[in-house]
């Protein structure tokens, strides 16, 4: 399959390894990965902050970048950005009275997948060790990010795949379905409430005894990691793409 990678702005700029891991996993399965260079960001930060006219060029850019390229499906290592592409882009177009853009947004959204959605639903991956060669000899816990869990309805796809990684131990995270408090600019505008939510998430992660907390969204992991780091807690954060890409030969270190 020809797969277009939507790296997402945060992964592109802050966590390039996660995008490389995504490419590795897909290439390992024999697919061709392309990276449409015109892409930048899904525009979620602008929309969720209420800056709709400012969001428009960002959203239009994404749609232009992804409906002109030749590919079978697009994939992003993020539930949140995919949910934005699928749901928020048509909503913004509707809200700003752009019916043609809305149709194009819906078409792009329909063939954009979150990484585990693509792996499980389209590519039929159910055992990461056997089918991807994934190996990661650490004890981890897993935080299901809200937009993947609720907007995309990912269910246990991410957790189930992580559990099948070779050498891994996955400890259950108490109150896993509770938001970490990131919420984009929510963490700035309502920093106190956000911090109170993060405090509980950090406490729960530490209670698992894991050496890392994994998840499917770099932004939430940056938030959680920032809290763990500030409190001097031992666990690190690591995107699930990095764990799935890790092998016996090239094992990712924490």
């Amino acid at each position: 399959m020809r797969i277009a990678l939507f790296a997402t702005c945060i992964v592109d700029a802050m966590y390039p390894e996660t995008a490389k891991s995504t490419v590795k996993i897909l290439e390992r399965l024999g697919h061709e990965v392309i990276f449409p260079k015109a892409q930048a960001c899904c525009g979620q930060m602008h929309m969720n902050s209420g800056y709709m006219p400012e969001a428009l060029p960002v959203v239009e850019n994404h749609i232009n970048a992804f409906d002109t390229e030749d590919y079978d499906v697009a994939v992003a290592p993020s539930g949140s950005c995919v949910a934005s592409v699928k749901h928020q882009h048509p909503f913004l177009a509707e809200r700003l009275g752009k019916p043609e853009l809305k149709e194009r947004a819906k078409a792009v959204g329909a063939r954009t997948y979150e990484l585990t959605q693509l792996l499980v639903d389209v590519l039929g991956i159910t055992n990461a060790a056997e089918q991807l060669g994934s190996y990661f000899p650490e004890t981890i816990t897993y935080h299901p990010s809200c937009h993947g869990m609720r907007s995309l309805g990912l269910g246990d796809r991410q957790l189930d795949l992580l559990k099948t990684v070779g050498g891994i131990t996955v400890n259950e995270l108490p109150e896993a379905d509770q938001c970490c408090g990131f919420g984009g600019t929510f963490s700035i505008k309502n920093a106190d409430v956000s911090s109170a939510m993060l405090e509980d998430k950090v406490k729960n992660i530490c209670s698992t005894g894991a050496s890392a907390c994994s998840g499917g969204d770099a932004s939430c992991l940056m938030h959680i990691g920032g809290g763990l780091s500030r409190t001097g807690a031992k666990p690190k954060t690591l995107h699930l793409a990095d764990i799935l890409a890790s092998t016996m030969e090239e094992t990712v270190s924490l």
Partner: protein
Amino acid sequence: MTQVFLGMPAGGQGNLFEQEPFPKAAHRELGNTQMRKNLRHATHSIRDKRLKVVGELPDWEALRNAGSTIKNNSMATLEERLLEFEKNFTARGGVVHWARDADEANKIVTDLVRGTGATEVVKVKSMATQEIGLNEHLESEGIDAFETDLAELIVQLGQDKPSHILVPAIHKNRTEVRDIFLKEMPVVDPNLTDEPAKLAEAARAHLRKKFLAAKVAISGANFALADTGTLGVVESEGNGRMCLTLPETLITVMGIEKVLPHWEDVEVFMQLLPRSSTGERMNPYTSLWTGVTEDDGPQNVHIVLLDNGRTRALADRFGRTALNCIRCSACMNVCPVYERTGGHAYGSTYPGPIGAILSPLLTGIEVEENGSLPYASSLCGACYEACPVKINIPEILVHLRGEDVDAKREKHKLPTQMDLLMKGGSWALGKGKNIGLLEKALPLGRLAAGKDKKIKKLPGIAAGWTKSRDIPAPPNKSFRDWWSDEKESK
């Protein structure tokens, strides 16, 4: 066809306002550790109960869809439904009053009570009368209103404000309740303990006299059925049944959005509401009344149909489904923000996720600090998932943030830091080559990090982030550049 713009319908009045920006109110409430403990305990136990009883129904999603569809249809034909209800309610001996806003509704109710000669009324728990500040208004007119719902009684005796739409005293624990009873009840056992049964007994003894003496009761309604002219109240304690049957005069204040088309619709909502609100399969008391029944129950039956901003909310095509709310409170029980700040932080009668959209929709976003309410959410979506009528609260929150920014755009003489960040971001993230250009400066960001490769302090509006979180040093090279170097050059 020529369209005549008639202007935005009037905004709601009364207790619908956030008086200070939400982050400021939240900061204060977050410091109340006892309240946070009480609230965590209470919301978590209601959550678990709800999940259990919802999980029992194989057709829960179909029920949610039905609830949502019935409400949407009802809202789309609201005018006809209301007129149909008026006709049927009147035909059965009831009297219908129409109130544009809180002031009109308060005046209508006051005049009706005056007309009976009563100076005391008993009340069934009602959000509409909280919204319009009816108790305070009646008091200023020399009429005492006694709340008969246990939690409302606690709030009223404690001269407090409700902090939850279903469990108004959720922020108090039972020891605090006992202390309020000991201090405020005229006749009370001085050895009262904080055992729930003893507290309920004290409230029962206190209220029984009121029920038997009252000539007038005031209620809200969970629904009105257009095709039969029936009103319904769903409750747990039986205080509602007492108020709805014993007095001579019954006055109901109901928001116009509560009308349902058909008698049959009750079936759907009686499955959705108790499970979503108290986590029960069925609530203990459901009272339905259709006008006046001779020699049985109140002989003077009135309803005040309240707009107070509802027409305004209905005119907002991206926000109108907020009117589908059946006041079950599931959204606040699952909300991580509400759990930590409590209901008082929202200012309005309607707290939590539904309040964060409903209050500004009813009043207009630019009134008081209601523009800060839609930001009181991390957009985690737990509210939407729990809502029995599938109100897409996160989407409406985002829509209202857009309304807020647009309203403020015109007022700001100088752009705020957020404005600058968003405008700069719009350029930077609007083209692949722009973000690519900025990413060339990533190594510079590494200079801001300490030896441990962490950024610990950011300036300006981002300072809130680094109060409790580090940021990792950025990488030397973006993915984009890596791709160009490694993939494209080969």
